[in-house]
Structure formats: C-alpha cells, structure tokens
C-alpha cells in the first residue's frame, strides 16, 4: 500500500510499504477514505517530538471502510467507521472511568517504559504519533490496522458524507473536551488562545455550553475571521496587547475561563517566547509556552484554565505564583475521544455542529508531502487539509 512516512525534520514522503494484517483477535483493518493533517502532526514535522523513527507512518485523524475483522471485533465488513486517535482497551480501570487516553493497555508493554520514565505512568497508545505512544502506524495511508476495534471506531450511518464526521477522530472531541474542562457557567466570558481547528471547535463548544462571550486570540486574519462567524470577539496579538485588551474587554476582571489551544510551538516575538525558541533550538528545553503563561496571567481570580494544547517536556518560567495566588484550576490531557463520540455524532446529525467549514484543501494521499508543507508554511489560508486516497484519479474522471 501507499502511506505517508516520516523521514526527518520537514521530510515526509509517500512510500510503498506492506499492507497491514490482523494480528490480534480484536483488530480490524480499514480501507481509508478520508484522513486529515493535524496541528499535532506539525509538531512531528518540525521534529519537536522525541522517539520518532524514519519510516514511521503518520496520521491519527482518519476514517474508512472495514475490510477485514478479527474474531473478537464487533464490526462487520463494509461498515463505515471513524476511528479515535486514542488506542484504548475498554476494559482497564481508566477505560472504565471513560479516561480513555489514560488506558493502561493500549500502549505495547515495551513502549510504556518511555512514558513511565518521562511522566511517571505511561499513557494510552495513539495512532501515528511517535514511539512514546506505541509506535502504531497511522492513518495517512491506504489501509490501517485498528486494534481494539470493538471499542474505538464509531459506525457512521449511510448518507452522511465523510467530511461531516471525519473530525470526530480528534479535533472535534478535543475542542469539546477543552470547553468542558473550562467548567463554563452561564454568563461566562471565555478566552481562547489559538484559532486552529482545536480552538475553533472549542469556541463553538463553549457557546453551546452557555458561554455568553468568547474572545478568540490569534494572528492569522483568516482564522480570526472564522472565529467571528461563530460569534467570538477577536484579538490579533500582532496588532494588540493581549493582556491589556482582555482586561479592558472584561471590565478589569479577566476572563472567567481561559483555553490554551496553541501548544508547544507558540508563534510570536515576545521576550519570553524568543528565549524559549533559543532554548528549544539548542535542546535546552523543547516547549515554548508563551500562550499558557499569558492565559494564566490574564485569567480572573479563582478562574479555570483548560489546556488542550500539547506539551511534551519540562518548562521553566511557568507562572506558578500567579497560578497559586489566584487560586486557579487547571484541567488538561489528551482527549478521551471514545467518551464523546455518540453525543457528538448525534449533534452533527441533528445539525447542531458543523465541521465542514474548516476544510480549506482536499488533496490526494499522493500529495500529502505538499499538504504538510502548505499547512506548515501558510497557516492563514490553510486551515485544514483532508487527504483522500485515490482522490486525484477520481477528480480526474470528473474533469
């Protein structure tokens, strides 16, 4: 099959590799029909995440048709499914509590050592996201082996096109969980750093959960424009002093809840950020954390901090004093995708949530390297790239 493989910093290629096979009873194999490039993939592309190996197949946002099932799978050949990016067993203590991304068993035993050493306890497996999270081959490929297929994938009813449901695999539940973690109360003002897919879905979700105002922060006009269409007020941090603006816009109180949807590659020329960049490029620290710092300082006393953004390592200059003195609460984590799927699928079917606005580019899987470059270089215009195996051939027919 053809698959998009990582070979090093800014070097991804479509390679021909062996097709996946059923290896465990609960596995299934799916033939991918749509798969997306995620902001998290850019962290791999920029070589910010350790434990990558040349040839690793990327992609954790994908859906397709079931073509093979193991004896323990509950799926049937021919069903269309969206696959969560978290690989969770469904039967451990954490899965029992719906903390799927903390699953004890989804990550192979040997790979769990890395998480155990780095974080104290290992997390679940993830598709296409380094050997820290299992070294599983991802979904930017023609076929994928899906472990625990009786627990993860959600079956999509006929007649609902891929683009409406593809983002159930990650960014829609991630935006939703980000808003949930902000413990929004009616009348709240919520500030969201980053208007990428996660931030934009967090904004939509925050309004659905009763936020009165959402203030969106980014520097890409096109992304801020999208935030506006959902009713958010915007701050362009290149033109405006973010903290000062937030204080003015909230009558000197600060936002009731803040959401960091930026992550370890925060942009911008702020003093602390530039120091972080120098450190990152000299391997003194990998995480640039300007956005979470600013969010904590801006957040009102006793407020809530939600951090869907991904961080991997150890940071300094974390405003621990502000965090403690103001009595803030922080909730974060990889998304417990499986927990949200039934509710969010229903919301999509009922038309309460639309996800298709996000897609700016559709490419053939063969053009994936170009997709990465575009998404990386032009974040203003490129909001989401969806890859479709065989798309070129099909659209060729149409033309």
């Amino acid at each position, binding site marked *: 099959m053809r698959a998009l493989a990582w070979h090093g910093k800014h070097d991804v290629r479509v390679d021909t590799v*062996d*097709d996946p096979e059923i290896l465990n009873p*609960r596995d299934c194999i799916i033939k991918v029909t749509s798969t997306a490039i995620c902001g998290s993939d850019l962290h791999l592309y920029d070589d910010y995440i350790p434990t990558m190996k040349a040839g690793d*197949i990327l992609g954790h946002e994908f859906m397709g048709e079931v073509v093979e099932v193991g004896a323990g799978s509950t799926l049937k050949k021919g069903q269309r499914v969206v696959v969560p990016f978290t690989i969770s067993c469904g039967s451990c*203590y954490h899965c029992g509590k719906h903390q799927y991304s903390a699953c004890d068993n989804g*990550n192979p035993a040997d790979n769990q050592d890395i998480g155990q050493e780095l974080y104290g306890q290992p997390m679940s497996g993830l598709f296409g996201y380094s050997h820290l999270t299992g070294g599983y081959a991802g979904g930017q490929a023609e076929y994928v082996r899906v472990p625990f297929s009786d627990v993860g994938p959600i079956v999509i009813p006929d007649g609902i096109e891929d683009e409406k449901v593809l983002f159930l695999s990650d960014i829609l539940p991630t935006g939703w969980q980000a808003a949930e973690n902000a413990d929004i109360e009616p009348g709240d003002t919520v500030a969201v750093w980053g208007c990428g897919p996660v931030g934009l879905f967090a904004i939509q979700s925050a309004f659905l959960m009763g936020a009165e105002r959402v203030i969106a922060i980014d520097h890409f006009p096109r992304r801020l424009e999208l935030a506006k269409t959902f009713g958010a007020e915007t701050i362009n941090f290149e033109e405006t002093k973010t903290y000062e603006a937030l204080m003015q816009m909230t009558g000197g109180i600060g936002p009731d809840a803040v959401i960091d949807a930026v992550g370890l590659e925060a942009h911008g020329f702020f003093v602390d950020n530039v120091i972080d960049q120098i450190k990152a490029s000299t391997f003194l620290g990998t995480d640039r954390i300007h956005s979470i710092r600013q969010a904590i300082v801006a957040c009102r006393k006793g407020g809530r901090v939600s951090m869907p953004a991904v961080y991997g390592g150890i940071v300094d200059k974390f405003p621990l004093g502000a965090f403690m003195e103001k009595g803030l609460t922080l909730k974060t984590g990889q998304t417990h995708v499986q927990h949200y799927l039934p509710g969010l699928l229903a919301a999509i079917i009922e038309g309460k949530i639309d996800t298709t606005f996000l897609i700016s580019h559709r490419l053939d899987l063969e053009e994936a390297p170009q997709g990465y470059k575009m998404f990386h270089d032009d974040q203003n215009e490129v909001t989401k790239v969806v890859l479709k195996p065989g798309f070129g051939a099909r659209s060729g027919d149409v033309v």
Partner: protein
Amino acid sequence: MTDDAPSATAKHTSPDQDLTMQSVTIGRPADELFAYFRDFSNLSSFMDNVERIDVIDEHRSHWVVKAPAGKTVEWDATVTAEEPGRSISWQSEDGADVPNSGRVTFTDAGARGTVVSATIAYDPPAGIVGKVIAKLFQREPAIQARRDLRRFKQLMETGEIATSSRTQTQLQEERA
C-alpha cells in the same frame, strides 16, 4: 527501615543479590490470575525472554530461556511455597547457570481487582560469565519484570497482548 515501604524500594540494597520487585494492579479476581499463573506452561505467553516452560510435575518445571545469538539456557525450578489464590514461590534447582528465585503475590484490591507483585532475585555469577548472563536478560531484570507484568495485565484484562506491529512478519521479529 523506619517506614512502611517494600524493602525492594530501599535506596541501599544488598550488592550480592539482584533483587527486583514490581507491582501491577489487574482488574480481575485473584483466583483467576493465580490459576493462570500457577500453570507455568502459560508464563511464556507474557514473559518475553521465556521460550517455554515444561511442567514436569505438580512442583517441578523445566525452563527454556532465550539467550543471545539464538541460543537458549535451561534449568529446572521447584515450587517452594504456595498459598492457593494468594502467593507462589519458586527456586531454580542446584546447578542452574543463573541461580534465581521468584515470588509472586496476589492481593485482593476490591473494586480495582488484584495487586500482583513479583519479587525476582538473581544470583549473577561473577566475572565474564556474569556479563553474558546480564546480556541473556537483554535488559535489567527490573525492567524485564515490569514489562512482563504489563503483558500479564494486558492478557488478563483484554484477552490479548498489545502490539504496534503492522504485519505478521514484523510481529514475529518483535517476539523473536
């Protein structure tokens, strides 16, 4: 010791014995876990470096353990103590290349299942042979034991052992 922590977690341990203790909580009843473990022929399903264990009789078993370069080492072991559903201890018989002993306890943990703790002691021979033996276990005994317990947990909780291999060929290489 002035605290309640297990002795295997002490900062200073006796240098002549390589002692390791690892615990894992498994969401299954103690009796079920004990029964699976007590049949030593099952252990190779989750113990990475064990090629196979032949059960000789109720107390004795023959262990075939992977060694570098496709070789194996073998020894016989005897169950030295046993409390059904709660604990089992074994020891290699005289003449084993790597004298070793193990004890596994199964402690009821209520709604969380069972805490399984394994204490494995190796008496590594001195000198060059010792280095070969160290290689034999491919990694530190503590890491080996921790990984084996995780696989035991996966098997008991999910019915299978997680792998990120994509093809049968990769899986065979991984398990070799």
